[in-house]
C-alpha cells in the first residue's frame, strides 16, 4: 500500500518529448487512470513508474522512497501488459506462481496463494493449460492473477482490455474494478478509451503530446473540461464545438445565436453536449438543415452542419425526420462551455 509521487518527470528521446514535466501525487489506494490518444505519453509515464524506462528528469517516489535507481523488481509493483506477457512455456499455475518463485517466497505458501489468486479471477478450471490454449479473456485473467498473487504495493495496467472483444471488455472491466476495491492497492491504469476511464477511475489524468491537459474526478472532467482537447476527447459523442464570436453576452456563428452567456467579448469556441440539447420544431438557438440522422435505440442522434463543424443533439427515440429537413436545437445557456479559440483554454467556469 503506497502513495506514488511523480516530481517534475520528463522523458525525452533526442528532440522528441515523450512526457513533459509531469507532476502528480497518487494517493494510497487510489485508482488513477491515465487517458489520452496514442502517443500522448501515458504508457511512457507508467513504464517510468514500473522502472522499464528511465526518466530524463525528475523523481519518482513510491511509498516514501525514491525509486529512480531501483530495478523494476525492487520497486514492488506488478504490471499487466496489453499483450498479456504470459510465459508461453509454463502452464497457468506456473505463470501465476512465477513471481513467488523468483522472489523466493516461502514455497510452502505458494499453493495457497496461487489458488487464492486464481479463484479471484475464476481461473481454477484452466490451471493446467498453456497460455496458447486459452482465449484472450482467459489470458488477460491469468495476467491479472499473476499481478495480484504477491500483493504488491502498486498495480500498473497498460491498456489491459484493448485486445478483448466488446462484450468481454465490459465484464473484465467490472472484474478489475471489483478487484481493486477488494485488494485496496494503489492502481495506475492506462487507456485510450474514455469509457473505461469514466467507469474505473477515482481520478483521471487526461494527457496529450506528453502534457497533462486536466486532472480531476471523472465528473469534473466530464462536466467542466479544462480545454477543447479534453472536451472533444471525453464523452460519446464528444462535446460539440462551434467557433464564433461573443459580443455583449451573445454568441453568434452561422445558423447560431445564443444569448445570456457571461464572458468578455471576442472570438470564442462554444461547447455543449448532445444530451444537454433538445431538438424542437422551431425557435431554438441553432437552426439548420439535418446533415444526418442516427438511430441509437435509446435515442435518435440528429447532426447539423454549421460552418465547418458538425453539431449533434440527442432527440427522443421516436423522433424521425428526413435529411435536409430544417430543425432547430435548443441549447440552455447554462449548459454551454466557452473556450478561448486561440489557446483552447476554458473561459470562466
Amino acid at each position, binding site marked *: 500500500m503506497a502513495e506514488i509521487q511523480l516530481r517534475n518527470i520528463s522523458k525525452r528521446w533526442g528532440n522528441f518529448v515523450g512526457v513533459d514535466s509531469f507532476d502528480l501525487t497518487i494517493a494510497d489506494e487510489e485508482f488513477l487512470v491515465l487517458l489520452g490518444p496514442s502517443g500522448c505519453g501515458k504508457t511512457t509515464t507508467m513504464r517510468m513508474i*514500473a*522502472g*522499464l524506462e528511465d526518466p530524463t528528469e525528475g523523481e519518482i517516489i513510491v511509498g516514501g522512497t525514491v525509486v529512480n535507481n531501483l*530495478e*523494476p*523488481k525492487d520497486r514492488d*509493483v*506488478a*504490471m499487466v*501488459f*496489453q*499483450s*498479456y*506477457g*504470459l*510465459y*508461453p*512455456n509454463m502452464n497457468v499455475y506456473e505463470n501465476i506462481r*512465477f*513471481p513467488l518463485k*523468483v*522472489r523466493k517466497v516461502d514455497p510452502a505458501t505458494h499453493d495457497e496463494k496461487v489458488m487464492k489468486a486464481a479463484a479471484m479471477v475464476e481461473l481454477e478450471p484452466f490451471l493446467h493449460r498453456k*497460455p*496458447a490454449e486459452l482465449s484472450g479473456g482467459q*489470458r488477460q485473467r491469468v*495476467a491479472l492473477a*499473476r499481478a495480484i498473487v504477491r500483493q504488491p504495493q502498486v498495480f*500498473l495496467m497498460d491498456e489491459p482490455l484493448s485486445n478483448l472483444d466488446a462484450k468481454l471488455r465490459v465484464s473484465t472491466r467490472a472484474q478489475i474494478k471489483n478487484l481493486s476495491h477488494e485488494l485496496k492497492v494503489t492502481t495506475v491504469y492506462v487507456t485510450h478509451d474514455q469509457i473505461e476511464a469514466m467507469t474505473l477511475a477515482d481520478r483521471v489524468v487526461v494527457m496529450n503530446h506528453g502534457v497533462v491537459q486536466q486532472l480531476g474526478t471523472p465528473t469534473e472532467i466530464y462536466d467542466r473540461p479544462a480545454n477543447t482537447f479534453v472536451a472533444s476527447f471525453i464523452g460519446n459523442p464528444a462535446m460539440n464545438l462551434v467557433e464564433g464570436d461573443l459580443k455583449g453576452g451573445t454568441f453568434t456563428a452561422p445558423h447560431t445565436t445564443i444569448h445570456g452567456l457571461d464572458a468578455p467579448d471576442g472570438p470564442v469556441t462554444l461547447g455543449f453536449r448532445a444530451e444537454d440539447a433538445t431538438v424542437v420544431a422551431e425557435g431554438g438557438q441553432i437552426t439548420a438543415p439535418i446533415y444526418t440522422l442516427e438511430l441509437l435505440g435509446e435515442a435518435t442522434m440528429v447532426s447539423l452542419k454549421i460552418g465547418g463543424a458538425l453539431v449533434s443533439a440527442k432527440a427522443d427515440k421516436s423522433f424521425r425526420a428526413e435529411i435536409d429537413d430544417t430543425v432547430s436545437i435548443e441549447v440552455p445557456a447554462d449548459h454551454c462551455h466557452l473556450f478561448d479559440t486561440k489557446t483552447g483554454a476554458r473561459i470562466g467556469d
Partner: protein
Amino acid sequence: MASSALRAPLSLRVLTKGFIIFWLILAAFPFIWTLWGSFKVELDFFSIADWTNALTGANTERTHGSPFTGAGYEGAWVQEEFWRSVINTFIVCFFVVCTSLTIGTLGGYALSRSGYRYTFWLLITALIFRAMPPITLVSGYLLPFFEWNVWGILPTTIIVLVAINQPFTLWMLHSFFQNIPKELDESAKVDGCTQFQAFRLVIVPVMWPGVITTGLFSFLLAYNDFAVTSMLLSESNRTMVPEIAAFLGTTQTEGNVMFAVAAVVSATAPLFVLVMFFQRQIVSGLTAGAVKG
C-alpha cells in the same frame, strides 16, 4: 471428401506426382549410389570396362565370394584408424557448437534488446565477415599459427571455426530473439527477475527450438568444413572430411579409394540420424511462430 472443384484433373495429378518421384530419385541418387558402391571393390565401383559392374558386383564376387563386401569399411576403420578422425570431428563439433551457441545466444539477445543504432552496424559487419570465403582468412592465420607453434592442433581449429561461424549464429539467434515480444522480458523483470534471470528463466526456454536449430547449423558447418580443417590440422589430428580427402589422394594401392567411399557413408549416416532426431525442433525453429504468448 474433396469437392470436384478443388480436384485437379487426372493428367495433372499424374504429372505432379510423377515429377515429385522423379525429383526424389534424382536428389537421392548420389547417396544411394555411394551407399551401394561402398560394399563393392574398386574394380567394380570404378569399373572402366562396364559400369553395370558397380550394380552387379562381378569383381567383388570373384574376390570375396559374394557381391557385397565390408572390405572398404574394414580398411578405413581398422587399417587406417578412421575412428580417430571421428573422435576428432566430434571434439571439434562439440566445442564449436557450445562456444558459438553461448556467445550467439548472449550476443543475439543483447543485440535484439538494445536500443542503440550501432547494433545494426555491428550486425552488418558480422554479415560482411560471414560473406568472406573462409580460405581467405586461413592464409592470414597460417604464418602466426606456425610462429606461435599452435598449428595442427584441435583448439586452434575450433577457435577459427567459431570465428567463421559466429556471425551466422549471431544473425540467426538475433532474429529469433526479435520475434519474442519484449513484454516477456519486461513482465519477468516486473515479476522479480534480474535481466539475466529474465533471460535464463523466461527467454531461453521459449527460444529452445531456435537454439537447437542454430546449434544444428553450426554443428553442420564444423562437421562439413574442409577449407579450415585441411589447412590447419596435422595428419594425426585430422577430422573426417580432410581424412576422406586424404584417402582419395592415395591411389597407389588398389582399394584405398574404397576406404574413402566407405568413410563417406560413415560420415553421412550420423547426419541423417541427427536431423531425424531433431526434426520437430528444427521445423518449429525455422517457422518460429511458436513463441507467441
